[in-house]
């Protein structure tokens, strides 16, 4: 009798299982359908840099799923190599729906109608957490003709960017010097000679394009900075008035070309700075480079130490350098005009990224346990070197945690870095290039073919300078300078 009962129960159980197997997928399908009533909004974000397989996976799966779940946004993230502005411009021009890195001052994109106009009131309503982080810096840097075209990211010290060297102090120490003690050009050259002699295979400098800023006290009395692109016009923050100067005709440029040529002669500058300009940065990151461009966080940066055991990153600033604040954000993000109907979702997303430290950590450091863990003191320890949304881009002081190995005085110094900095005279000025677009294109070609090789010491200055300036003028330098002067004077007058 018992056996019979068992047989019957086993039979019923099997039948039940079959029924479950047949009907359950349908039930779960129904549940899933019920949950998401509205269709997720598809958004496409493009920034510069490179993706590793982990960071690709993070954007494709982890981050995507969380954002989809919490904001009902189906976000795809793509990365273009640095310097892909032209490609991005083509995408914007062809009406693709996306949001991307942008620098509004000096950009032609707002004028061409590539970008969606943003309402400040809307930003304040939708992005309270972002605004809290942004605080006093405001949106001047993201405006074109009084309208906001971008959301500036980052809130941290910006003074003296590209005006100092970041150096491998462990290497310097190994040849008997100390980065902190190097204050003059001669001391610098002495140290470089010693290093080059001891480590002939080591690259001396990455991104020598910033030498004009880094060696400024040695090159000129004027105070201004240049970027890694062509800078045709500048204003001297050291003097009163609205006078605009031509950079490539300046003493500073001429001197840096000569210095660079000397460095090339000494074997300090590599040829690939022209053909593969980011190679140097890679070598710095790989521990095979002595100097890199410095920034406010150089002395507290532990990234290199993590990648290259024993590496000590230390700033070298020549005496007489004026710490200049030329911008109060890193990069901003613009929304393409074609995607204007998704501005609300984009702003919601940006606010969500800064909503709390959890979201911020996810955005910058990835998944806890997989990409990072928290140390006992609450600071974050990365478990891999993959980058997600870059920390320098996102950085907000209030969410910062520091490696416990960094002395407190260094972190304090970092947070108060801007205290003794000087605001650039043209901070907040945005040059409307629409009237000189073709001139800029022609001048840029001259820069890339002649001036940049000269600036890096790779093209003979004496032989080529006059001709290059002539070509520059032929390309429309005078018109450009005139226009720049006019606009700046106008702006400057307004500021007064």
């Amino acid at each position, binding site marked *: 009798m018992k056996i019979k009962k068992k047989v019957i129960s086993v039979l019923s159980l099997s039948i039940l299982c079959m029924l479950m197997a047949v009907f359950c997928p349908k039930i779960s399908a129904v549940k899933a359908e019920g949950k998401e009533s509205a269709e997720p909004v598809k958004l496409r974000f493009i920034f510069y840099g490179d993706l590793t397989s982990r960071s690709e996976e993070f954007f494709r799966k982890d981050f995507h799923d969380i954002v989809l779940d919490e904001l009902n946004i189906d976000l795809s993230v793509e990365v273009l190599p640095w310097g892909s502005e032209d490609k991005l411009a083509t995408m914007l021009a062809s009406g693709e729906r996306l949001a991307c890195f942008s620098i509004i001052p000096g950009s032609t994109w707002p004028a061409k109608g590539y970008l969606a106009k943003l309402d400040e009131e809307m930003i304040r309503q939708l992005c309270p957490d972002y605004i809290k982080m942004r605080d006093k810096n405001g949106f001047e840097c993201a405006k074109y003709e009084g309208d906001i075209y971008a959301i500036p990211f980052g809130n941290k010290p910006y003074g003296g960017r590209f005006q100092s060297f970041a150096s491998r102090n462990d290497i310097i120490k190994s040849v008997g010097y100390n980065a902190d003690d190097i204050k003059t050009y001669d001391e610098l050259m002495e140290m470089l000679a010693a290093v080059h002699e001891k480590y002939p295979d080591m690259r001396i400098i990455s991104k020598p394009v910033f030498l004009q800023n880094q060696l400024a006290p040695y090159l000129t009395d004027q105070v201004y900075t240049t970027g890694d692109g062509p800078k045709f016009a500048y204003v001297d923050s050291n003097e009163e008035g609205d006078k605009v100067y031509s950079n490539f005709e300046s003493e500073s440029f001429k001197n840096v070309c000569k210095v660079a040529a000397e460095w090339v002669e000494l074997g300090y500058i590599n040829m690939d700075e022209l*053909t*593969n300009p*980011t190679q140097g940065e890679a070598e710095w*990151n790989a521990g*095979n480079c002595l100097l890199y461009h410095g920034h406010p966080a150089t002395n507290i940066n532990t990234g290199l130490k993590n990648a290259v055991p024993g590496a000590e990153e230390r700033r070298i600033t020549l005496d007489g350098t004026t710490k200049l604040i030329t911008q109060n954000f890193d990069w901003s993000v613009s929304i393409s005009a074609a995607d204007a109907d998704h501005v609300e979702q984009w702003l919601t997303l940006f606010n969500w990224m800064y909503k709390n430290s959890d979201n911020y950590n996810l955005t910058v450091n990835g998944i806890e346990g997989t990409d990072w863990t928290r140390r006992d003191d609450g600071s974050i320890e990365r478990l891999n070197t993959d980058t997600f949304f870059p920390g320098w881009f996102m950085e907000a002081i209030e969410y910062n945690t520091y490696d416990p190995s960094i002395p407190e005085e260094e972190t304090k110094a970092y947070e108060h870095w801007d205290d003794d900095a000087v605001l650039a005279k043209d901070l907040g000025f945005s040059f409307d290039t629409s009237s000189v677009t073709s001139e800029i294109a022609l001048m840029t070609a001259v820069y890339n073919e002649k001036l940049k090789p000269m600036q890096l010491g790779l093209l003979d200055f004496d032989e080529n300078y006059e001709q290059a300036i002539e070509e520059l003028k032929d390309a429309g330098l005078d018109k450009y300078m005139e226009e720049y002067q006019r606009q700046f004077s106008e702006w400057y007058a307004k500021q007064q």
Partner: protein
Amino acid sequence: MKEKSLKQKMFYVMCGIGFIVLTMMSLIVLVFLWHQMDKETRTLARVSLSNTDVVFQEYITQAKNMGNSWYGSSDGVQSRIDAEYKFPEHMAFVNQMREEISHVPYIQSVYLMDSGPKCRFSVGNGYSYTRPLEEELMKRIRNEEMVNGYFIWSVENYLTSPEELPLMSLYCQEVSPQSDNYTGTLIINLDLRRMSRRLFSGTLPMNVEMYILNENGMVMLSSVEADCGRSWRNEEFVRRILEDGKTEFSERKDRHTYDYIVLDSSQSDVYLVAKLIRPQFVGNLGGLLVILLFIWLTLAFLIVFMTFRASDHLYRPLAQVISEIRQGSEETKNAEGKDIRFLKNAYQNLSTYITTLENKTEADEFVKNLVTGNKEGKPQEILLKNHTVFGGVGYYLILVSLSGDGDLQNADMHMFEARRNMVGQLLSAGLDVFGQCTIFELGIRRLLLVISETKDTKIDEEQLLEELNVIHTTAEQAGNSSIYILISQKIPDGNISCLLPYHIIDDGLKIQRFLPESRVVQRLTDVVMIYPEDMEEKILTCLKQKDYDAYLDAVRCFLIRSQYCIYGTFIFWLARLSENIMRLNQILSLTGTKGKKIEDYICDQLEQLADYQDLKQWFTTLYQQVTIQLFTVSGHSNAAIMEKVVDDVSNNYSDDGMNITSLAEKYNISAAYFGKLFREFTGESLNTYIMRTRMEKAGDILVEFPEKEIAQIGQMVGIANPSYFGILFKKYYGVSPSKYRDYKKTQKSEEK
């Protein structure tokens, strides 16, 4: 345990079988679907491989075209040949190359060598970084004899140090570096991981991996990026592809089954391989299915076995019944093992038997009521019901009786039965043409045939009689014994009772036995006969004249003339004749009347006579008495003989040959007279006496020897045939021997 009903048992069996069938079908469907899925996956993989091949070619072609165009451009030529060439002076060319490769992320770098060969410059695209490669490249180029070609190698990757960066270096040159006319080489380094990512990313399911291998077993591209640039020459599956040229095969390794599908690329010496990964349990699905199948076959066997047991249980009583029937059946041997056929036959026999029995019962009922005259309407009712006769049309009764003379003298019951049946068959065969013919058995010797007209047929009486005569003659000749056939007058309607006509012909039959010869006689209801006084006178005359032969002739004529009157009258007439004969010589007082009137006495005497021979003897005796004043019967001496006979019977009842003839012979007295004497002495006929003695003895033995079988007891009392014994016994006691024994047994135990 409670006994399950047949329905429940069948339910369990059907459930079991249904479950097995369902499961087997599910398994078959599962296997089918799995097979289809596998087939589709392979097809998909093949298509995917073809697509990948096309795209891969496109990538390579694009890179080659770029290289060729740079190499052959004026800047390209100048940069290689001009000893004074400095690339910063030709930045337009460099920038153009940079711009072009920036759109092709898998191009890691481009190196331009002069005839040195020495690197003029290299262009990178900023996606991946390595240490400077020019020295290594120059070394490798020196060994390359081809104008266009590639090699795969790995270099240290700065970005994700210490990982190796697998590169595929495509080179183009006008002539080999060994040649004197060597003018330099352009090398495009393809980042295989990035190319793989672009080629495979997001297009492959989780369980599929794809590789592109070259003829040296190097992994050019792989959906698993880490595998790019590895040499798999020693891998088993690569060996099978390269050496055996297999295009589709499976491999089991590390708890997985791998199905490989290989496509020969349209590029020479390049193989595209799709690897379908199945976990072992899926890989072993075949084995799993075999195990499942085995389990289910075992279960199926068990259930079938149980079903057999159940059916055995179910059919055991039936089988027992069948074997019991077989034991009592002659068909046992013929229908061995074929229960159903056997049962069918048995059933048919049984039903035939029952029908016969029913008919017989009805016939018996008819005969009983006909003979006794009880329930006057019953016989007719049965005839009508069985469609023996029909209302509105006439019918005849034909009574047939076998005489015990000729061959049938001393015949046993079976012989009479056989003869009776033979006559019955003759009659029904001969008379069937006249109408509806039905035969009833009235006894061992007698048959009653009812022949009825139907609505369509009328019976021609003359022809019928003629036919009857023919049959009579035939039957008598065939049997060599006398047969009496009496036919009634036509009864005009089936509704008219047959009782009266039957009694008339039955009456006639009694007369017939006294007639000198048998023949077909029709007895009519309203025959008025006058006593043949003329014949009496002639007999008396013959007597007086002492002419014995004439006397016998006259008696014969008297009998024939008297035959159509009723039996009572016939006997009375015979008595009257006898009396008148006796009176001739006043012999009446001598014979003794036992107080009866003389006519009645003579009638009694006459009725004791069996047949014509007895009657002839009677009249001969009368003749003798009258004519020669024969002896007077001495009661004393005859009584002594009869006492002996009684003793004889009591002692020899077991002798089955004992009858009136044998006893009469033993005592040297004629059988007829012997019978007469015995009857006078004992008051009953010798046959009856013998029978009574035998039956009483049989009754005693039955009770005394309960272990003895009925047939045995029959033999013990001189009746060898058990059936005949049963019939006689029942006739005497009113019950069958076995019932008699049971009854006595019960009676005894009750007395106790």
